[in-house]
């Protein structure tokens, strides 16, 4: 059996996991499903792309690729810039839209997030057109890893970057006071206030974290495949499936859920047919909701 699907699935799954962290923390702390999360991912990808080209132009028109990779330093700096941008965008959407509606029924906020998603996607399409864009058109030669698995240097680099980000987020959530406060607000906001946690600060931190990770996932998906206005929207179902599969509020759960979905999608493409790829997240989501509604690592349903 060819094990290539494992490598492909692991990589796309880690990206999904990265994006799903934002979904899961927003859901558990703000208590609503943010359908505009996909657009944070898309806008991150476009900003990273635009910033990297602007930096290349500023650097005299050339930024040679780093070692065996298809991208140079401008893409890395552009990626960091995109993380800052999407974090700021998430804060801005909250300030303008969600904060005003949060005290009401959560369905109102969910609907508002649908609206925000539509508006942002249209704005992105208006500014960048609907044609896909690429960080690089260079072809990369994949290298054998054994067991019939081949990976490109870009894929290996992005697995490394994603792993570093995931470990960083995990440490933030488990070892820092900010992470403990986020877990506290997620579990019991009133008690969190009683112990001195400023819930509004934690809400802002949640947007910053979710926005930045979405941008990172978007930029990396852009490096691996392409950037288009619907990329985030198309990832929404896998993101939500990963968050629910892992258990709402659980960061390790989002990562494991993301990887499970990524591998299931890749296996479906390899063994069943690519037309079934999109259905896999949905099937896994339904199966998990039927068998274990609180997810793999969730504390409560």
């Amino acid at each position, binding site marked *: 059996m060819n094990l290539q699907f494992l490598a492909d699935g692991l990589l796309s799954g880690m990206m999904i996991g990265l994006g799903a962290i934002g979904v899961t923390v927003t859901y558990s702390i703000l208590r609503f499903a943010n359908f505009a999360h996909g657009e944070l991912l898309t806008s991150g990808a476009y900003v990273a792309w635009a910033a990297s080209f602007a930096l290349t132009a500023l650097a005299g028109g050339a930024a040679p690729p780093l070692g065996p990779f298809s991208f140079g330093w401008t893409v890395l700096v552009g990626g960091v810039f995109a993380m800052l941008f999407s974090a700021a965008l998430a804060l801005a959407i909250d300030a303008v839209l969600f904060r005003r509606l949060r005290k009401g029924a959560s369905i109102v906020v969910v609907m508002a997030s649908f609206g925000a998603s539509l508006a942002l996607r249209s704005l992105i399409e208006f500014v960048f057109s609907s044609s896909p864009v690429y960080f690089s058109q260079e072809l990369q030669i994949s290298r054998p890893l054994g067991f019939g698995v081949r990976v490109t240097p870009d894929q290996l680099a992005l697995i490394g970057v994603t792993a570093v980000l995931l470990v960083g987020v995990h440490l933030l959530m488990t070892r820092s*006071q900010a992470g*403990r*406060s986020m*877990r*506290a607000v997620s*579990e*019991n906001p*009133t*008690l969190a*206030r*009683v*112990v*001195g*946690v*400023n*819930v509004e600060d934690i809400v802002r931190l949640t947007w910053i974290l979710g926005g930045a990770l979405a941008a990172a996932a978007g930029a990396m998906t852009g490096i691996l495949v392409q950037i288009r206005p619907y990329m985030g929207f198309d990832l929404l179902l896998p993101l939500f499936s990963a968050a629910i599969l892992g258990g709402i509020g659980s960061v390790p759960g989002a990562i494991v859920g993301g990887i499970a979905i990524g591998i299931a999608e890749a296996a479906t493409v390899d063994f069943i047919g690519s037309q079934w790829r999109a259905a896999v997240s949905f099937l896994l989501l339904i199966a998990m909701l039927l068998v274990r509604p609180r997810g793999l690592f969730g*504390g409560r349903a």
Partner: protein
Amino acid sequence: MSEALLEASGLVAGYDVGVPIVNGASLRVEPGEIVAILGPNGAGKSTLIKAIAGLVPIAAGSIRLRGRDISRLPAHEMVRRGLGFVPQTDNVFAQMSVEDNLRLAAGILEARLRRARIDETLAFFPDLSQRRGLQAERLSGGQRQMLAVARALVVSPSVLILDEPSAGLSPKLVEIVFAKLAQIRRTGVTIILVEQNARAALAIADRGVILAEGRERHEGPAAALLGDPAIAQLYLGGRRAVLEARP
């Protein structure tokens, strides 16, 4: 008259605008004493202490801590001013370990003081000390209540406010919890206690305040309240006992 540690005057508070549950209540607490707030169901006991803790909006009146007005401060500021609150239910973070519950609470202290305060607090609660790595949801009811109290104590509050600490506990555990509260008072912490279990509360309290319809009706030394047959009959379960005694 010396300055009270905590003084609430003319408090009007409730969850919905125009529907006050606490309706003009006043409360004066001296340093180092235990004050029990008692009264029938719906008297506004819990709402009164939640309003003091910043968890229920205040429509009128004022709360002063050591003479300073703290009436409109958000709940997360109250604990920084020295006012510790232990809710009746859901009073620990069940998904976190005992240690993380304490670490979270100790977060408002200077970083260099946190470890020592957590260790001191755990030393005061040996039962918790042996379970510091255990998730709080796996603790027994009594241990959870102790963790909730420990969590409030870790930041060395000047006033500890507890909402029905005996609720849901067996008589044996109630005894243990109240003995612990008496022990905490001996360390210099002032305690305000809302209780249904009036006799147990008055047994450790210096004073009792009896609330009815959102304001104080009777107030006096705990021993005097316990010994007053009219009070006992109306508010301390006496009337119920009489009714139950009839054939």
